[in-house]
């Protein structure tokens, strides 16, 4: 080695591997308008589909007259359930073990439900034809309240399930009941509650909302009748799963189906499910022999494709007088809409809601979830969270605040005395999870010190006094949250979707000149996989991230994987990437040893090369090794340098975080002003700090939306009241506060690089933090809990009900 040889850290920096805030390689095309989304795809002779949708939430379909529509120039076909029935495609299976109408089969169960599918030569003709189709409805009684849906005389929604007392998840006890899911020890929990010093009780509603990605859902289906091959471009968060499901539903052999997810403009769970538009487009393409495009508009997206949340969570939490939590009880009434189309691993009908003991060492707990049918849209997707984890985090973080009020205790201190201690990991929770790693006390202390917690409480006390003296009409709320996520679904032993194990995959090919392509079973929707997965590989195989192409989303080329949602890409596919990289490195070691004429064990890895132990001037770089793999006849080794890894994670990962929000509340108008938001995230090993910060900003902004105004609301007739972006709140830069981000690093002990995933943490932690802040502002006046969203009038109503308007 001489002075000109870069040292280790310089060489590592050049790789732009783990820890580098490398710029996103995707943004070159996105910032120049060169992205390629589904609606950018144009094929010769392509037709356009459009839906007739139900204006009613519950009605019998008496007749459908499509004659005038069919006579309109440009209209090629009109499909109804009667046309799909001979193919057995008028209903489709859901991810939750239920089935769902593709087109209305005799009745409709929610406003916006698909009734007929028009196929025409252009979008305008299709839309004109939709207007001309006459559907005669006979209105039926509507039920939008899940509690009323379970009353004895409630309208029967699912006539197709008449007499079925057994559902996909056990017994059904009422015609609108879907399942009961029980976890934990009921008797022991009730015993603790009945003997506890203090029990706090509250009903906590996490309202119905919607992921609302900027790009709506859509597809282009193209059946090549000569080759017998179906190609579908679509907004799919799980392309391989879609291929398998499409094969099972359609009977087309799986090798004859190619699913391509091009650029996707945000998913947030909305693009996990299978929608009637996909089925209808595929059928229409098979029938017409032409490509068929269907892209829903914004109103259709909000009304008909998957909603999120809608959980009524009744909680009871027990503690000793000095604040040690002794037990937690929870009952959830889960509103699933007209069909159970929740996107959860099959064995988990309420997702991972049983993470609801949160970050606390709670010795005993019991949880029961009742799924209920109502006249609302189906869905129940994981909107920027792992399955039902944000509901669980919201529940426990509100219950902690309610308990703190009951105990007369500071909520920060209550959390501190109940945290799972560092030495308790791996920690087995009362509801069955094994938390991999954590250091909650360190993160909490860092967060509280960063915001000056004691000073904030003193300022709040001063403000209350000033308010009482009539000197101000603004109150101050301090929102605290400590959350633990459960992400990275998941171990095949207990996680599958429709029987498909939730492993993931990576396949790497090193080119002779020392660059590479890696293909994964996941699909980026804005997460920056092409940037970060190249960084994982750069650190593993010593080639610069800039020389590594990451490709996802084409089932003909990518290895099988379960896709991107639930923060699973880094925990599962990221692990597969590291493991595939290690296979490359293992072979590279043998090649290097051969080239250096030493035994395999006599070389060691050094950033981007193998060096002879004790002789650092003798080395072979990965670039040299790559070339040798293709031009040397090495005894006992096959030529080439490729590897594939399918990774079945041994456990979930458990990212956590400590958030603090400070809000000023105008008592007279209900207007809130987020003065400060501090977010400390611990996602284990940090791959790209810039992307992490961007993920945190985005997740917090969606959390702000949900907590402060975003909802899918229905009136009593089942009409959607929030069907456009006028009423459905999507924050712009104007509504978005400044965020302070921070971190601690507690690697996952079982993940190859110790990474845990971060994309969804800020939503999971952000929602309770904003909500806690608003509720906290009124705590001094006897207020305990108000439901989200905390829009102006609901905040005003808290003040009004407390008598603060004089």
């Amino acid at each position: 080695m001489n002075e000109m040889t870069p040292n280790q850290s310089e060489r590592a920096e050049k790789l732009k591997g783990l820890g580098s805030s490398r710029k996103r390689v995707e943004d070159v095309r996105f910032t120049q308008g060169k992205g390629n989304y589904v609606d950018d795809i144009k094929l010769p002779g392509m037709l356009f589909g459009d839906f007739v949708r139900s204006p009613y939430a519950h009605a019998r379909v008496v007749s459908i007259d499509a004659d005038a529509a069919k006579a309109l120039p440009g209209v090629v076909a009109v499909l109804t359930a009667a046309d799909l029935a001979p193919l057995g495609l008028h209903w489709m299976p859901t991810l939750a073990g239920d089935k769902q109408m593709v087109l209305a089969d005799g009745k409709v169960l929610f406003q916006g439900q698909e009734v007929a599918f028009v196929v025409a030569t252009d979008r305008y003709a299709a839309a004109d034809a939709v207007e001309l189709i006459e559907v005669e409805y006979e209105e039926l009684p509507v039920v939008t309240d899940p509690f009323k849906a379970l009353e004895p005389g409630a309208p029967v929604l699912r006539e197709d399930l008449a007499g079925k007392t057994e559902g996909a998840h056990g017994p059904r006890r009422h015609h609108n009941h879907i399942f009961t899911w029980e976890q934990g020890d009921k008797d022991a929990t009730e015993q603790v509650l009945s003997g506890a010093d203090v029990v706090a009780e509250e009903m906590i509603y996490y309202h119905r909302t919607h992921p609302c990605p900027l790009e709506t859902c859509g597809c282009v289906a193209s059946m090549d009748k000569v080759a017998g091959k179906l190609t579908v471009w679509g907004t799919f968060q799980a392309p391989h799963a879609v291929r398998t499901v499409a094969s099972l539903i359609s009977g087309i052999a799986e090798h004859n189906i190619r699913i391509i997810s091009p650029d996707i403009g945000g998913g947030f769970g909305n693009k996990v499910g299978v929608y009637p538009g996909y089925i209808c487009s595929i059928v229409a393409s098979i029938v017409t022999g032409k490509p068929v495009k269907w892209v829903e508009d914004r109103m259709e997206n909000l009304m008909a494709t998957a909603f999120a949340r809608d959980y009524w969570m009744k909680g009871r939490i027990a503690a000793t007088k000095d604040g040690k939590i002794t037990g937690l009880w929870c009952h959830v009434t889960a509103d699933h809409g007209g069909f159970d189309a929740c996107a959860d691993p099959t064995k988990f009908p309420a997702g991972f809601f049983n993470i609801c003991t949160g970050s606390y060492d709670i010795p005993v707990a019991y949880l029961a979830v009742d799924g209920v049918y109502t006249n609302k849209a189906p869905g129940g997707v994981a909107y920027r969270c792992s399955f039902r984890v944000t509901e669980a985090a919201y529940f426990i973080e509100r219950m902690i605040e309610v308990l703190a009020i009951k105990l007369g205790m500071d909520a920060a201190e209550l959390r501190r005395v109940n945290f799972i201690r560092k030495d308790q990991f791996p920690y087995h929770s009362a509801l069955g999870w094994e938390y991999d790693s954590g250091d909650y006390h360190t993160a909490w202390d860092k967060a509280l010190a960063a915001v000056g917690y004691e000073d904030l409480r003193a300022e709040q006390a001063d403000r209350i006094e000033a308010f009482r003296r009539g000197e101000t009409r603004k109150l101050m709320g301090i929102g605290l949250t400590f959350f633990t996520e459960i992400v990275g679904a998941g171990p095949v032993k207990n996680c599958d979707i429709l029987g498909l194990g939730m492993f993931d995959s990576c396949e790497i090919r090193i080119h002779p000149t020392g660059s590479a392509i890696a293909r994964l079973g996941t699909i980026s929707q804005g997460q920056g996989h092409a940037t970060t997965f190249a960084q994982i590989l750069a650190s593993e195989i010593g080639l610069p991230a800039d020389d590594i192409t990451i490709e996802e989303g084409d089932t003909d080329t990518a290895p099988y994987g379960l896709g991107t949602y639930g923060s699973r890409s880094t925990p599962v596919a990221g692990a597969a990437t590291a493991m595939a990289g290690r296979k490359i490195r293992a072979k590279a070691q043998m090649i290097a040893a051969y080239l250096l004429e030493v035994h395999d064990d006599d070389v060691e890895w050094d950033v981007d090369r193998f060096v002879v132990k004790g002789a650092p001037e003798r080395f072979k770089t990965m670039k040299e090794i790559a070339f040798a793999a293709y031009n040397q006849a090495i005894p006992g080794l096959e030529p080439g340098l490729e590897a594939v890894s399918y990774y079945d994670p041994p456990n979930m990962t458990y990212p956590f975080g400590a958030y603090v929000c400070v809000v000023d509340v105008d008592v007279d108008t209900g207007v809130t002003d987020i003065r400060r938001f501090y977010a400390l995230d611990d996602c284990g090993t940090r791959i790209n700090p810039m992307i992490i910060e961007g993920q945190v900003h985005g997740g917090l902004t969606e959390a702000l939306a949900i907590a402060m105004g975003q909802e899918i609301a229905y009136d009593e007739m089942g009409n959607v009241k929030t069907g456009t972006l006028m009423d459905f709140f999507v924050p712009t830069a104007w509504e978005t506060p400044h965020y302070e981000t921070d971190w601690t690093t507690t690697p996952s002990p079982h993940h190859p690089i110790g990474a845990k995933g971060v994309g969804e943490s800020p939503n999971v932690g952000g929602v309770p933090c904003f909500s806690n802040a608003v509720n906290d502002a009124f705590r001094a006046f006897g207020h305990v809990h108000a439901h989200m969203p905390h829009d102006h009038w609901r905040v005003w109503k808290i003040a009004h009900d407390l008598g603060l308007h004089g």
Partner: protein
Amino acid sequence: MIPGAFDYHRPTTLAEATGLLAEHGDAARVLAGGHSLIPMMKLRMAAPEHLIDLAAIEALRGIALGTEIRIGAMVTQAELIAHEGLAAACPILREAALQIADPQVRYVGTVGGNVANGDPGNDMPGLMQCLGARYALTGPDGSREVAARDFYHSAYVTERAEDEILTAILIPHPAPGTGYAYEKQKRKIGDYATAAAAVMVGRSAASIAMTNLADRPIWSQAAGAALASGDVAGAVAAALSEIDPSDDNRGPAEFKRHVAGVILKRAIERARARAA
């Protein structure tokens, strides 16, 4: 979100435009910035067979500061905001326009379209009533002027006849030293007001109008008179007695009525603080 079929016309003179309007009658609509009409067409709540785009008519453009202020109907909100002379002559216009929609919409949305459409959610109608503005209308039988305070009958129903085009807004110069404020509470950028108030207050005169609190803008003569005499509580009470808010996603009427009182009081305080 796909409109029905329509023919597109782009006249270059006012006479040509009124001629097209006369020719096609009910089947035609004039298009200004299009930020109300185009969404209505995409929802198929409006389905004009003829769309008469006013964008190429030079006579509908421009801001003139003469003995009174004249704002051409096709002046965009952005042009109104950027006009320094106008901001000096009548600063409440800029203050209010900056609270309408977002920059992208304001580059296209016009003042004329905002006042002519009769949408009770629009901010400019109430403001124009507060300022005592008049609207110039041209139809097949010639031109006339209508006071903004007489123009609005109910939601989307105005004094403008179907064959008339609103060509300009005429605003008397506020008296020197007049204090002003436009106060608006909204849920988010681009939203209509939960409640909004326009206040002008001078030495012996005052004017108060409120937005999105009835099926039309509410200019309250009694409220202005009370404020002119220095009776703030009386002014607020008078204005609140004339509004008639309805329940919507912004909240129930009770809430809006309360917020309207708060907003108006704040507008009055700010306007009085600015009065010389």
